[in-house]
């Protein structure tokens, strides 16, 4: 099971501009992490996804983008997991 998660995270991290990714379960516990991302961020990521989903309960799971001058963090909750992808705002092409 871990291998498929690790493969998936590695594939994500190999994409342009992506510097790290985290996968968390419903309880906010880390299932996997790759690249420049912290294991301890899994709880906060899940909490953010849960709170934002409350804004429009009728809509399907939103994609949340947190951005600063250099980096972006994209968060989306699927059925039983939440994923966060960290990427640079201006990837070098």
């Amino acid at each position: 099971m871990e291998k498929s998660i690790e493969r998936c995270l590695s594939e994500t991290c190999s994409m342009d501009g992506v510097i790290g990714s985290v996968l968390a379960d419903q309880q906010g516990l880390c299932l996997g992490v790759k690249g420049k991302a912290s294991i301890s961020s899994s709880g906060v990521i899940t909490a953010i996804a849960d709170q934002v989903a409350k804004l429009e309960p009728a809509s399907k799971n939103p994609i949340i983008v947190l951005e600063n001058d250099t980096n972006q963090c994209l968060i989306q909750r699927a059925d039983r997991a939440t994923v966060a992808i960290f990427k640079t705002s201006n990837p070098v092409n």
Partner: protein
Amino acid sequence: MAEDMKKYLKQLLLRVDNLLCILITDRDGVPILKAVNDKCPELAMRPNFLTTFAMATDQSSKLGQGRNKTIICMYSSYQVIQMNKLPLILNFVATADCNTGHILSLENLIEPLLGELKGAVIES
């Protein structure tokens, strides 16, 4: 000083949905600092419940995986997370559906309080 710490702990309690109680105790389960929600079960704050952790953490440290840091107990309605910060113990009580990862991330935020409290416990 103690009031400031209590206030800070209360703020942390409100930060996580369905977190019912944050309790800092000594090894014997004597509460040193606590922030409690009205819905917190009384049973989870009793010294005889809290002292079980000191024993459990000692035993689980013998499993050959290094020193035990955290024990998470999931019950049908509640979850109890206890962290080994000897001579102190950090206890969190939350509902079963509460975000466990978010509670674990509070550890770093409570760490600054522990330094001063540890000094007080060792002196006494």
